[in-house]
C-alpha cells in the first residue's frame, strides 16, 4: 500500500507510524518493539545521538514526525549491527535507521550544510563514480561541501595529518583507485534507480 509522504506542520501526526510501517525498509517490524532498550544500550555511539533507537521508535509511534525526521540518530548510525543482533523481538534497527536517513534527506529535513548527510553524499559520489572510495577525494568533497571558507579551514587543519599519512604510505599520490568495470557499475546503478523509480 502506498501512503503519501507525511505532511509537515503538525507536532503529533498519527498517520506517521502507519507511513513508516508502509514506506520504511523494516518499518513493518517496528511495532514489535517492546521498548526494552537493548538497542540504545548496545549502541557504541548512542551518546552522540539526539535520541537512542528505542526512544526514536516510540516517537514514531507517538507521531512526532518533525522530531524524528530531523534527528541525527539515523545519520550517526555506523551500521555495526549490534542492536540488530541483540534485539529480542527481531526488529531490524539498522535498516530502519538507514532508510529513515534516506527519507529525511529526500524530504528535505537535512537541508543546508549537514555534516552527516554531506559526508554520506561524498562517500556515495566516490563509490558511484569510481567503484571505490578514495580518501582524498571523499574528504575534500566533504570539506568543501560545507562551504568554501569552511573547506579551506578544515583542509588546512588536516594538512599535517595528510602529509604524515602520505609519508608513512597510508595515503597514495596520483590517480584515484578505480574498479575495472566502471561501465558495468554505472549500468547496475542506473538499473537500480529505474527499479526504485517504479515504486
Amino acid at each position, binding site marked *: *500500500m502506498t501512503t503519501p509522504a507525511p505532511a509537515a506542520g503538525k507536532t*503529533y501526526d*498519527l*498517520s506517521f*507510524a*502507519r507511513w513508516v*510501517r508502509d514506506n520504511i525498509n523494516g518499518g*513493518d517490524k517496528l*511495532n*514489535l518493539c517492546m*521498548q526494552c532498550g537493548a538497542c540504545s544500550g548496545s549502541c557504541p555511539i548512542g551518546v552522540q545521538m539526539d535520541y537512542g533507537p*528505542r*526512544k526514536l521508535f*516510540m*516517537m514514531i*509511534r*507517538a*507521531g*512526532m514526525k518533525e522530531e524524528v525526521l530531523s534527528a541525527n540518530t539515523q545519520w550517526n548510525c555506523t551500521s555495526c549491527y549490534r542492536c540488530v543482533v541483540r534485539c529480542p523481538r527481531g526488529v531490524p534497527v539498522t535498516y530502519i535507521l538507514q532508510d529513515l536517513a534516506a527519507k529525511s534527506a529526500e524530504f528535505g529535513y537535512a537541508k543546508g550544510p549537514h555534516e552527516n548527510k554531506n559526508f554520506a553524499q561524498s562517500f556515495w559520489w566516490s563509490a558511484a563514480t569510481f567503484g571505490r572510495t578514495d580518501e582524498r577525494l571523499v574528504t575534500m568533497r566533504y570539506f568543501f561541501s560545507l562551504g568554501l571558507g569552511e573547506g579551506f579551514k578544515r583542509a588546512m587543519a588536516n594538512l599535517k595529518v595528510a602529509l604524515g599519512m602520505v609519508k608513512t604510505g597510508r595515503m597514495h599520490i596520483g590517480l584515484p583507485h578505480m574498479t575495472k568495470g566502471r561501465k558495468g557499475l554505472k549500468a547496475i546503478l542506473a538499473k537500480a534507480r529505474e527499479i526504485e523509480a517504479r515504486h
Partner: protein
Amino acid sequence: MSEKKPGVYLCKGCGIADAVDVGALEKVGKNEFRIGHCVVSDALCSPESVASMQKDVADGAVNRMVVGACSPRVMAEKFRFDGVPVVRANLREQVAWSQPAHEEDTEMLAADSIRMAAAQLAKTQQPTPAALGEVSRTILVVGGGVTGLTAALEAAQSGYDALVVEKSDALGGWSSKWPMRAPHAPPYRDIYGNDIEALIAKVKANGRVRILTNATVAKTSGQPGAFDVVISHGGQDVTEKVGAIVVATGWRPYDATKLTHLGYGASPDVVTGIEFEAMLAKGAPVKPSNGAPVKTIAFVQCAGSRDPNHLPYCSSVCCTASIKQALQVVKGDQDAMAYIVYEELRTPGTAEEFYREAQRNGVVFMKGKATSVDGKAMTVSYSDELLGQEVPLGGLDLIVLATGMVPNSTNVDAPAAADPEKDKAQLTDDINPVAPIAVAGYAKGEGTPWPHIDKGIPPGGPILNLQYRQGPHIPILADGFSDSHYICFPYETRRTGIYTAGPVRRPMDMAESAEDATGAVLKAIQALEGGAVGAAVHPRVGDLTYPKIGHEKCTKCRRCTVECPFGAIDEDEQGRPVVNFARCRRCGTCMGACPVQTITFDNYNPQMVNDMIEANEIPDEFSEKPRILVLACENDAYPAIDMAGIARSHWSPFVRIVPVRCLGSVTLQWVSTALQKGYDGIMLMGCKSGDDYQCHFVKGSALAKERLSKVGETLKSLALEQERITFEEMSIADSCRAPTVLDAFAKLIGDLPPNPMKGF
C-alpha cells in the same frame, strides 16, 4: 462405648530414643494415668508394630490410644483404627528434633507431651456424625452465562441433576454479546469465533439439566444436601429441593456515565468496550456520529479501573479484550490504525503470542496513563512513560474506553432492604457489629474492632435471600466480590454449600470462568455428599464431629449465632441456638464464643483443652523453669512449628504447645486456667486477620484477637503483667521465624518474676 480401655504406644525411632528416655515416658502412662497397656516399639509405623496394634484392638485389649511418636500431621493413615480414638503426642518434631538430647528440660517436655495426650484422650470420644441421610442430588445454578452453563453441564456429566435459574429471557449472558473470542488454546495466537451458541445447545440437549429463564430465587432456606429454594418463575413461586448451590451471577460493566473525565458522553464517538462489541457484531465499525468508516481508533485501558475513585482493582480482562477488538479492526480494514493506551498491559494466561500477533498486525501500543480525553476534538492525551512527555493522540475517529467489571454480588433488580445499615452490616461483615446483650468480655452495645467497608456496597437485594440468622446475603469483600480466599480456598464462600464461580468471585474471562465453574461444581458435589454422611467440607474435610449445644446451661446470649463465620447457627422462637450441621465447618468459633462453655465437640471441647493445660507439671517458682503455653492454630501455626522441628531448629524447652482447631475456638476460660495453674506466659499463635486474612475460618483469628484484648483488665485485677499474654501471627510459610518468636517470648517471660499463682 462400654468400658474405656486406653493404651499408650511409644515409638523409639526417628531419633526419639536418642533424645529422650522412652522408658520414663512409659512410666508416666503407667503410674500417673494408670494405663496398664503401654507398649514401646523401635519403629511404631513399621508393618509389624501396626499389625500388633491392630491385634490389640481386635482382641479388645485396647479401644482408645495415645500414640507417642511423630507429629499428628504425618502417618495419620497408619495409626487409624476403626472406632478407636487416637491421640498423638508429638515426640519427634517438637521434642526429639528440636531440643538437645537427654537434658532434664527435654525429658520434662517429653513427659508433658504424654501427659497432655493422655488428658486429651480421656475427654475424646469417637464421633457420632449428624448425617442427613437422604439428600437432594440436584445442584441449583444461579445464572445462565458461560459460568452457569458450564457448571450445569459439568454437574450433569458427573451424574447430578442441575437446575439453571436465569434472570433474563435468554441464556448466554454477556458472553453471547460478542462475535469473537480471545484465544484460550494453543497456539494462543489468533481471535476466533465465539462458540457460546454451541455450549447453549449442548446444555439444552442434556436431559439432566432443567432451565428456567425469566426466573429468580425468591427465598433459600435449609442446609447443604437439603436446601429449600423458592423460585419466582412466570409470576408464581415454585419450591425446589436442592443439595447445593452454584452462584454464577457474573458481572456488569462499570457505569461509564461516571467517567466524564474520560470524555464519555461528550461525543457519540466515545464508546465503552461493551458498546464497541455491539458495533463489531454488526460488521465493520462506523462512527456513531456520522456513519463514516472508522480509520483511526484508540483504546483507553483502565477506564475507571485501578482508580481509587472508581474501581480500585484491576478488572483483568480488559487488556485482552482490547487487543482482541483492535485485532478485529486492523484485520477487517488494512488501512485502519489502532492505538492501545495502557498503563501496564495485564493479560493473565497465555496471551504473549496474542499480544505479539496484534503487534505484527500493526496495532500500536502506547505506554502511559491517559490524562484526558477530549470527546469534541477526539483526542486522547496521555503521559507517555517511555518518552517522558505528554502526548496528544489527535484526530481519532473512535475512542473506546475499556471499562471494568463489577460483580453481581446482589440482584440489582431486587428491592433494597428496608434497613440499609443492617443490610450493609450483613453484606460486608455479617458478624453483628454490636453485642446484643452484655456477655463475658463484651459490654452491651460494644462494636467490633475491625473497620467497616464504606465503599462498594452493591445496590439491590440479595441473590438467594437466605433465611439465615445472619441475613440474606452471601458476604462480600471490600471490593464487592464474594468473600473467599483467592488462593487458598477460592470457591468457598462464607455460606457452606453455596459456591460462587466466575466473575462474581473475581474478574475473569470466558475460559477462566468455565474452569471456575467446573471447580465450583465439584465443591458443590462434595458439600451435598458430605451433608449426607455428616462430614465437613473445607478445611476440615471429612470431620464427623459437630458442635453440640448443652441447652440446659445455655443462657441464650446469642454470641454463637452472632459470631459463627459461616452463619451455621440459627435461633428458634425462644432464642435458643439451633445448629444446621451441614452448614457447619467445625471451626469451634461458637465454642470459643460461648461464655458458659456449653458447646462441645466429641473430640474437642473446653474441658478437654482445660485438662490438657492442667496436665502439664508446673515446676515451683524457685526452679527457674518458667512454663509458657502456646495455643497454636493447627492449620498454619502448628505446621510451621513442626517444620521448624523438621529443619532441626531449636527453641525454648519451656514452651508447651497445644494445637487448637482455630484461634476462634479459644475460650478465655483456658487462659484463666493457665494463669491459675501457674503458667508464666501465654501465646496465641494463629493466622493473619484483617482484609487480607489467611484464617481458614475467615474470622477466627480476628475474633481471638478481639477476645484477647478483653483480658487485660482481668490480668490487672490479678496483679499480673499484661505482657504475659500475647498474640502472634504465624503463617505456614513462617517456619523459620517460629523458633525466634518462641525464644523471644520465652526470654521476655524469663525476665519477668514467676507467676505468683504457682503452687496454689
